[in-house]
């Protein structure tokens, strides 16, 4: 049984009288502990799929099955409780936090909401979470805007793993980071996946990163699946037009293929 099974997902937007189909009849599945990448140009529907899977927006058609249950049927408190198993890390680590928050408050929220630890126990859990993502525990009282971008993204990951989820949606989670920090964050994510068997829905426009971390990849074009399969196979020899265009547009990748030949 798949961890997440999405079938025939469709989402339309109405913009100025015209209907734009952002996600058009998309189906895919993710197994426990697996990384599935969604790649494609801007506007191809990657982020819309992320938000649909998280129920931040509702689909017009289709079904989402998560951990064996009809995820779209959940409402109110049941849905909020189930959200603990399905977390998200956003692209811009500054925008993803309340500008008034401190590191401790950000990590305290999921522990409190899902009743994971008692009030007295929480500071210790927060310190453990910070250490788990490679940060010093004395960062807790600092304000979010005081710490660096890489540290912020680590805090975002700590928040995501606080509720022990089985799936984390990473929406361009490393795209806004500089190259050296990106490597560290990717290593942290792979390490967490190995130890906790967390599955990732990895959304990125960077095929180099996708090739390095994903097991399978889906290439999207205008809301439809253009191509899918084993990440390395697809990126090394794309069959679809959009796949070829995306690989050709990735300069680093082109050079490595030239070097190899």
């Amino acid at each position, binding site marked *: 049984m798949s961890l997440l099974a999405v079938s025939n997902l469709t989402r339309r937007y109405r913009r100025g009288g015209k209907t734009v189909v952002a996600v058009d009849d998309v189906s895919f599945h993710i197994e426990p502990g697996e990384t599935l990448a969604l790649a494609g140009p801007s506007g191809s529907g990657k982020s819309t799929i992320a938000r649909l899977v998280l129920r931040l927006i509702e689909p017009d058609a289709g079904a989402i099955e998560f951990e064996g249950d009809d995820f779209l049927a959940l409402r109110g408190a049941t849905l909020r409780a189930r*959200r*603990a198993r399905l977390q998200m890390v956003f692209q811009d680590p500054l925008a*993803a936090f309340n*500008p008034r928050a401190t590191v401790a408050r950000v990590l305290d*929220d999921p522990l409190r909401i899902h009743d994971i630890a008692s009030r007295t126990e929480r500071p210790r859990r927060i310190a453990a979470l910070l250490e788990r993502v490679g940060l010093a525990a004395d960062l807790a009282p600092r304000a979010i805007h005081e710490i660096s971008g890489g540290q912020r993204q680590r805090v975002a990951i700590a*928040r995501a793993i606080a*509720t022990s989820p089985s799936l984390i949606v990473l929406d361009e989670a490393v795209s806004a980071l500089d190259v050296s920090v990106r490597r560290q964050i990717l290593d942290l994510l792979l390490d967490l996946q190995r130890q906790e068997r967390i599955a990732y829905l990895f959304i990125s426009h960077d095929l180099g990163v996708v090739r390095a971390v994903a097991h399978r990849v889906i290439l999207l074009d205008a809301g439809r699946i253009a191509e899918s399969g084993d990440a390395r196979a697809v990126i090394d020899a794309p069959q679809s037009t959009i796949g070829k265009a995306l690989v050709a547009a990735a300069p680093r990748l082109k050079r490595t293929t030239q070097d190899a030949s």
Partner: protein
Amino acid sequence: MSPARRFLRTPEAVAGAILLAALIAMALVALLFPGDPQAIAGPALLPPFQDWSLPLGTDRLGRDVLAELFHGARASLAVGLAAAAAALAIGSVVGTLAGFAGGLVDEVLMRITDAFQTVPSFLLALAFVSVVGPSLGVVVIAIALGTWPGPARIARAEVLSIRERDYVASARAIGMHPLEIAFREVLPNALPPVLAMSSVIVAAAILTEAALSFLGLGDPNRVTWGGMIAEGRAVLRTAPFLSIVPGIALVLTVLGVYLAGEGIVETTAVRRGLS
């Protein structure tokens, strides 16, 4: 430069702060004035600067104008601040709920807001006080009733932009209750532009209170500046100081509140722009 230093370098803000400090000092000193400001202290209609025990003279009934002025400062300040606080609180809660919930809740709340905004706020206050009866609390509620739609609209507009931000999405993603998201994540971040209105609202509330008192709808058991002006009206030609003294106090107070409020908004706005 710290916001406090910047505030002190703005002459208008400093002038406003001094006026406001003087008003607060007057309101506090009023507590020291022995006895009742409505008690008869000397001969009736004594002009100012004649008797130094009654420096601003006496009114038609021989009451000490200076004591009345100081006690009036208390009423003006209390009503102004309380009415503005109530209007800002109601407005930001209504605006946040409307903007965050959207749909039917938004429609209903905003149509109610429209209804309150289309009625002239002074008439609304007048009608409310006439029906319920004049007392300080009723006056505060009456003024707040006509004032809250402004902050509500601004809060809603701000919330509409904030609710699309990633941190609201991430609060939902961790399973936070919608009401907690609205009041803990969204509302505090929507407040700065609403609070920027507070100086205007306090100034308007003080003026409305004075106007109500002038029409005889103030709390009859308290001395207010509006009431003093109304008292002096009958003897405007023979003793104009009875209306002029509280009138000047009113002008300076509104000016002080406005200038100090603007100064605070300006200096904090610069700070946000820099960071």
